[in-house]
């Protein structure tokens, strides 16, 4: 199996503070790799480093066969991300149409062709076509997240990073977002890196998982092993603290 992203001994320091401290893992192509951990564990910094938005202090991140000196725009064609707060990743001064037009510039794609793909994807993501002329503040949380996903997918990336894809979404609609990501994996063989503090969600979507604690990877492997037979006390504590709905088994 070929590797989509390979991280070797990555270190990111902010002053003296090591936010990411010697992280090594590989994400197989077409798989879903889940990264879990608490606030401040370095999850988001690591993702920013994979995207080329954060320089490594030492170590290396190899993305498919991309040259390591490749410009961030070349990297962007291969890897896209949806960020934790989708409204803040869309420009507040631009309509959704204007924000999406930037993708055309990145890909040198003619307007007609881009507009066609946008209307196909609006339907695919369950968004009404009126969304396109709205501004980010006019969208609900669920809509904003779909628009962010639409923008990312328009680039036709091979790898998608989803940073807290369900944070702030109501339980009745978070499943929509997760089902969408699952479909994209099946239909387009997209490699997915999901970063989340939601252990229950990552446990169900990820093939492989890694647990971060204070900048280090303390545990990694097949998701079923990490979640159902953790080898570290830290992961056991996290799982134990997770609120449980005892009634669930009897309902399903």
């Amino acid at each position, binding site marked *: 199996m070929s590797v989509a992203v390979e991280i070797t001994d990555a270190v990111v320091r902010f002053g003296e503070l090591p936010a990411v401290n010697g992280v090594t893992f590989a994400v197989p192509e077409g798989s879903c790799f889940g990264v879990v951990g608490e606030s401040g564990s370095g999850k988001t910094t690591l993702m920013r480093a994979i995207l080329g938005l954060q320089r490594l202090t030492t170590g290396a991140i190899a993305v498919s066969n991309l040259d390591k000196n490749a410009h961030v725009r070349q990297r962007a064609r291969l890897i896209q991300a949806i960020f934790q707060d989708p409204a803040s990743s869309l420009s507040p001064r631009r309509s959704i149409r204007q924000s999406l037009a930037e993708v055309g510039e990145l890909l040198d794609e003619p307007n007609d062709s881009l507009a066609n793909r946008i209307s196909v994807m609006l339907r695919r993501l369950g968004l009404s076509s009126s969304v396109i002329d709205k501004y980010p503040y006019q969208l609900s949380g669920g809509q904003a997240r779909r628009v962010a996903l639409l923008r990312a997918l328009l680039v036709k990336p091979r790898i998608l990073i989803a940073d807290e894809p369900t944070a702030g979404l109501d339980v009745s609609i978070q499943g929509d977002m997760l089902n969408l990501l699952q479909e994209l994996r099946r239909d387009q063989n997209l490699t997915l890196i999901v970063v989340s503090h939601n252990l229950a969600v990552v446990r169900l979507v990820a093939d492989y998982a890694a647990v971060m604690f204070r900048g280090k990877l303390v545990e990694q492997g097949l998701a079923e092993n990490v979640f159902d037979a953790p080898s570290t006390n830290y992961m056991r504590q996290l799982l134990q603290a997770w609120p449980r709905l005892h009634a*669930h088994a009897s309902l399903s």
Partner: protein
Amino acid sequence: MKPPWTRSRIAIEDLSVDFATPAGIAHVVRNFSMEAESGRIVGIVGESGSGKSTLGLAILGLLAANGRTRSGALIIGDQRYDLTRTDVTAKLRGGRVAMIFQDPLSSLNPVFSIRSHLYEILRRLPSAESAGSWPIVAETALASVGIDHPRQRLDQYPHELSGGMRQRVAIAMALLARPQLLIADEPTTALDVTIEAQVMKEIRKLRDTIGCTILFITHSLGLVAQHCDDIAVLYAGEKIEHGRVSTVAVVPGHPYTSALLACEVSIDQQRGPAARENRFRVIPGELPDPHHRPNGCIFKSRCEFAFEPCADIIPPDYPGSGEPGHKARCHLRALG
């Protein structure tokens, strides 16, 4: 230190809250009533737009300028407080009723030390401790909610504390105020799961120490199942189900409650052999417009079981199951 008042039954009667918006009057909470025995932790569960936070703010008279409590009363023991009157709610605040907010950084005053926050409570207490004892009382309060080095913490400011510590300070303030009703609005949403568990433990300890009733406002059914005695489920501003958590979580009486429970992703849920094949439950459809309440059942447009009476008749509180006190507003329950 004894509570200044005795344990009492708490009830909320017919609370309705409106907001004036450019699109007209939005009815955000409609005719909400409930009662709880003293010392119960009642989980108020609902999604965005259900009115759960508005409910808490209305009791304390802290609605935004365009909000208005149209009707409603809070009953504590044999006392009745008219929630439409701002002078009444102002007296309740920090006295018989206290609140812990989702974001303690915005509820604690950034320019005052932790000491000032705690002294402010002591100053307002009816059974005022003598000012000479305040340092030791404040320090003891911080220590009892699990804050280390309490003496040094007294002179720190909110921004110097972590999110979990700030919530503990808010709990310590409630501990000193000794309210009969504590409203906790999503107090652990911003916290990591291990800190969340610790803060929930402190909230329960607070209840055990001062015997107050707690309205625990949350979107997390898991937290309610684990920490609450009773549950009230809100949908689009209306209470649609109420009962003991142990009953409602197992035999929900309303289809919305069932759907919410089914959507909750559980940490010990059965998993398919391939991760990419796992599917997640959703509740299709959208909340009704708060400006125009649809006729009949409020949930009918999203309900897979909706039938004739749901179209026009607002369902009353039917027995939700055999258990006394379990009520559900669903016509299906009339069929048994």
